[in-house]
């Protein structure tokens, strides 16, 4: 079942005192399935945040339909089943972490005892167990991101929407966010997150969607999107002793190892088959596959330069 479904969604903005429309999204179709981790990738200004805001009812589409759990989005009751972390979150800095989470738990009508237990659990889960009584103004960026994640999970949501959850985090912070996403997946939750940090995306997503200038250019499983695109292999050989290799190009030569780049699968087989004859031993074969980053760059180039009337703006 699709937990979030956008069909033919278009969204435009008008600049102040201007009749001109700026299209942010054009005819967007997107469907997020139950239990999957979906990475929504794109450059700044591609329309990722706009899509998320539309799904949450913070802004309204010009046309198209948005459904949450099969019902038209816009009914606040549906948000009982959703958790959301905005991009670069700013929270009430006069509250302590504990007060902040308690406030959000109250909005779900949780009883005092349940709130206390849940808030304690969440603080532990995001690694802020001993900092819950500190005011948010004293939190670092990473800690704010973590407390933001905690508020998104306060209602144990079925669908968790995260807008750039890894931006601005150090490698440890990113790893923690990644672990939380994987933990949510293990619990059968659906995670929809936008990002432009692609290495993490490849690792944790079931599916990704590539958004370029308001249009979905590719969507599917990571391995399907980048499959067949392994255009060369890097083969490390030992004991070649300066002899010729049957095919491929030597990229680097070490004391007793060489790195060879082979362009086709046939050449790879030939090279591996003739190793013995050259007295060489195989150390490693690494397929140099196209990464999501290559795919994104290719789609952006394919879309060409921004036409006038299109917006290139952060945090739309």
């Amino acid at each position, binding site marked *: 079942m699709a937990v979030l479904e956008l069909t033919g969604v278009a969204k435009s*903005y008008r600049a102040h005192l201007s009749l001109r429309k700026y299209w942010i999204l054009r005819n967007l179709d997107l469907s997020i399935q139950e239990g999957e981790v979906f990475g929504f990738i794109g450059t700044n200004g591609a329309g990722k945040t706009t899509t998320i805001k539309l799904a949450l009812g913070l802004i309204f589409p010009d046309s198209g339909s948005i459904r949450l759990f099969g019902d038209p989005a816009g009914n606040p*009751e549906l*948000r009982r089943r959703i958790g*959301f972390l*905005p991009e670069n979150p700013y929270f009430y800095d*006069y509250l302590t972490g504990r007060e902040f989470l308690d406030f959000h738990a*109250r*909005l779900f009508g949780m009883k005092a005892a349940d709130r206390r237990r849940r808030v304690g659990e969440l603080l532990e889960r995001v690694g802020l167990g001993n900092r819950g009584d500190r005011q948010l103004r004293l939190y670092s960026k990473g800690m704010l991101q973590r407390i933001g994640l905690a508020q998104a999970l306060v209602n144990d949501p079925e669908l968790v929407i995260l807008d750039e959850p890894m931006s601005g985090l150090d490698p440890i912070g990113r790893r923690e966010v990644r672990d939380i996403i994987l933990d949510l997946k293990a619990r059968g939750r659906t995670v929809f997150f936008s990002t432009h940090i692609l290495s993490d995306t490849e690792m944790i997503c079931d599916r990704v969607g590539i958004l370029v200038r308001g249009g979905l250019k590719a969507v599917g499983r990571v391995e399907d999107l980048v499959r067949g695109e392994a255009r060369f292999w890097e083969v490390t050989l030992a004991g070649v002793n300066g002899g010729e290799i049957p095919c491929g190009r030597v990229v680097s030569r070490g004391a007793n190892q060489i790195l060879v780049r082979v362009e086709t699968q046939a050449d790879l087989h030939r090279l591996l088959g003739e190793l013995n004859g050259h007295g060489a031993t195989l150390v490693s074969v690494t397929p140099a596959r196209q990464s999501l980053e290559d795919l994104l760059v290719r789609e952006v180039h394919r879309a060409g330069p921004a036409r006038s009337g299109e917006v290139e703006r952060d945090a739309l």
Partner: protein
Amino acid sequence: MLSRVTAIALNTFREAIRNRVLYLLLVFAVAMITFAQILSLLTVGSEEKIIKDFGLASIDIFGVLTAVFIGVGLVSREIERRTVYTLLAKPIHRAEFVLGKYGGLVLTLLINTAVMALWFFLILALKGTFDAGLAIAILMLFMEFLLITAIAVLFSCLSTPMLSSVMTLSLWVIGHLLWSLDLLGAKTPSAAARALWRTLYYLLPNFSNFDVKGQVVQGLSVAPSAVGFAALYLALYGAAVLIGACMVFQRKELQ
């Protein structure tokens, strides 16, 4: 619904009481009420009157300033700082958010007015005087604060804090001088212009309905019907303004 409105109201209250501006205004109010005591020493004969007059005026002005300066930022600041995103991604209706913000400021004003009134009565008690009429005057000032807060919240949904404070304070001043519009209407020969002035007279908030300061200071009693009318006026006008604020916010794009 009520629990969500209460949660937002309590959080707004907490924000206000952790805001230094509130304390600054409160300290100024208390200082002004105290200053009335000193001022009264300079006059002959009407010491009490000066204290009452000055005290009530201080409560009025500082109450209105608190309502305006906190009120105009209630909604717009949440949007500007993007704190509204996490809130409205929760199962709350936008109207609940607006009403919660309003409720929080009303609670703040209640405490604020109570502190100012207590100090005022303490100063008067030191002079050995008390007048029940003063409590009624303060009650009616509080009603005025409730209406001005509703107007500030409406502007907060529409515009920036700066513009909203100018608009709200202007309406407050105009609302105290509406009698002049009435007079203008009566003296205008053109029927169309007269109709316009009359319409404006009824449309704009009439804050003189809440103003019995002069009467009370002069020792005149306030008719219960005047209090009743003020309460009814507040209920109807305030509700209309808040419904307007909710409708504006309902359609607002939170970019």
